[in-house]
């Protein structure tokens, strides 16, 4: 079984890798934007992620390859096309402003890592 699976896997991956490249468009090298190490650091900061150097490198590779694939979309003329943000035409759903029951404070705090006086505790943010 394993032997068979290995043969099959090899074929399937080769086959599929080619399919994927055709599908998402092997874009000419240098033809699209590449994220620099500084860009990755900036995006990580916006994402509130403290990445290790190794992670930054791996992510840069992955993200740049995906961005190349996204370039395929630029082949399509969408000048006159409306964007779809939601598939059902729901824009605003109003309800009556009726007071309902709120969750009990103890329940709300039950999962918090640190609490005091019915509040979530976080590192100090205001200088005294």
């Amino acid at each position, binding site marked *: *079984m*394993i032997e068979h*699976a290995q043969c*099959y*896997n090899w074929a*399937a*991956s080769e086959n*599929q*890798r*080619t*399919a*994927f490249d055709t*599908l*998402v468009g092997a874009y000419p090298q240098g033809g699209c934007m590449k*994220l620099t190490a500084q*860009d*990755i650091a900036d*995006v990580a900061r*916006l*994402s*509130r*992620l*403290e990445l290790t150097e190794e*992670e930054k490198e*791996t*992510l840069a590779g*992955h*993200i740049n390859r*995906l961005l190349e*694939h*996204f370039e*395929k*979309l*630029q082949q*399509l003329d*969408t000048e006159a*096309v409306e*964007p*779809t*943000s*939601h*598939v*059902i035409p*729901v824009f605003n*759903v109003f*309800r009556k402003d009726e007071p309902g029951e709120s*969750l009990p404070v103890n*329940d*709300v705090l039950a*999962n*918090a*890592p*640190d609490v005091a006086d019915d509040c*979530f505790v*976080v*590192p*100090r*943010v*205001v*200088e005294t």
Partner: protein
Amino acid sequence: MTDALYELTIHEIHDLLRSKQVSAREVAESFIRRIEEVDSRVRAFITTTPEHALKQAEAVDEVLSRGDLLANPLVGIPVAIKDNMCTRGILTTCASKILYNYKPIYDATVVERLNESRAILVGKTNLDEFAMGSSTENSGFFVTRNPWNLDTVPGGSSGGSAAAVAANECAFALGSDTGGSIRQPASFCGVVGMKPTYGRVSRYGLVAFASSLDQIGPITKDVTDCAIVLNAICGKDPRDSTSLDVPVPDFTQSLRADVKGLKIGVPKEFFGFGTDPEVEDAVRSAVDLLVELGAHAEETSMPSVEYGLAVYYIIAPAECSSNLARYDGVRYGLRVAPDSGTVTRQTREAKSSIVSMFEKTREQGFGAEVKQRIMIGTYALSAGYYDAYYLKAQKVRTLLRRDFDKAFEKFDVLITPTSPTVAFGIGERADDPYAMKLADICTIPANLAGIPGISVPCGFKEELPIGLQIMARGLDEETLIRVAFTYEQHTEHHRKRPPL
């Protein structure tokens, strides 16, 4: 009799309960024993809830002994729920270290509805972390195995749910589907999985991944069970403003073996993604069978489908980067202490303690795939790039919808493979994120268009199941069920169970 209860479908167990040949407790015990017996090998569950299940079952027996609720088809039926749906007081982790200890204080609407139906919760199932992945290998805790071959993946992201149904560890399960996460694992595990129309089922209490794509749906042993579960979970919910206020039909009325005059479209693009020839053969034979039974089939083309993957990998990460901003170590889940030497107020030179806490918590709490998607999404939404990526993707999403609209002017259903291949080996695609993403290439378009899709077993390759995908117009789950049921009535694939 009692020993084999776990092998039965919902409707078969229901008949036994109704005629009082078994008690709900006996049913629950049978599944609990089954989980004990096989789950150390399959590893479908993050949490099992045997005591909870037995308590629920005893309550059900009491109700049944009074003659109440006998007509409700889910009374006393053991269910497994994907671990990204909130269950009050029961661990809900999303298979992420960042939620390793999270016990929700409320039930998701679907859980509430199953509780009202008096289904019995046997456990919470494994998934790719926050439902991001195609193999359940991205779980922050452990890998689930495909019951058909323990060296292969069960698919994903609802891999735990699909494996649990296939391994007879529950009578049915709930999954969630953002780009194929119900249908693709159902295909890999040889069971039935449906993603209903976007808005059919309330998402309240489903931990959000990509809100414009996420939808909850059933994973079952046959199409009849699929209809039964849909009846229980569909419908408007005031707590999810995107849930649709439209009548919910009785889906069991569509369990009719009749496809005379049905128009089937077979879009050729779905066979072009490195599809395994045996998968293609099985799918085309299924179409031939439906034609023999009176349907008309015609090949068609949907050119925009080839852009689906790129559109998905912009829109889903963009929405995920926003939805996952809430994991900051303040209100629930993991918190990692800030670096020493941080300051109270952030400056250009010095990081503040609170920002350090956010960053360290998220760094240690999230796995690699989740971080990658947050980064892509943040980038795609950032100033200067929004138009080139996110807006462009939304516009191409419109083109894709138009292709579906056009196809459904002519056809009642579209039939394709659910995934280009059968289940692949564990670890095989882990280093190749692109090959991994290809597993969802046939299922993503339905999420982008918001339409319903179902996967049903349609054959085997080397003892691994092949899935047939049927898609229909928005809100036309009835036709999906009718076509899938007709196919099932004339085949035996769904009766095969893995040799565990």
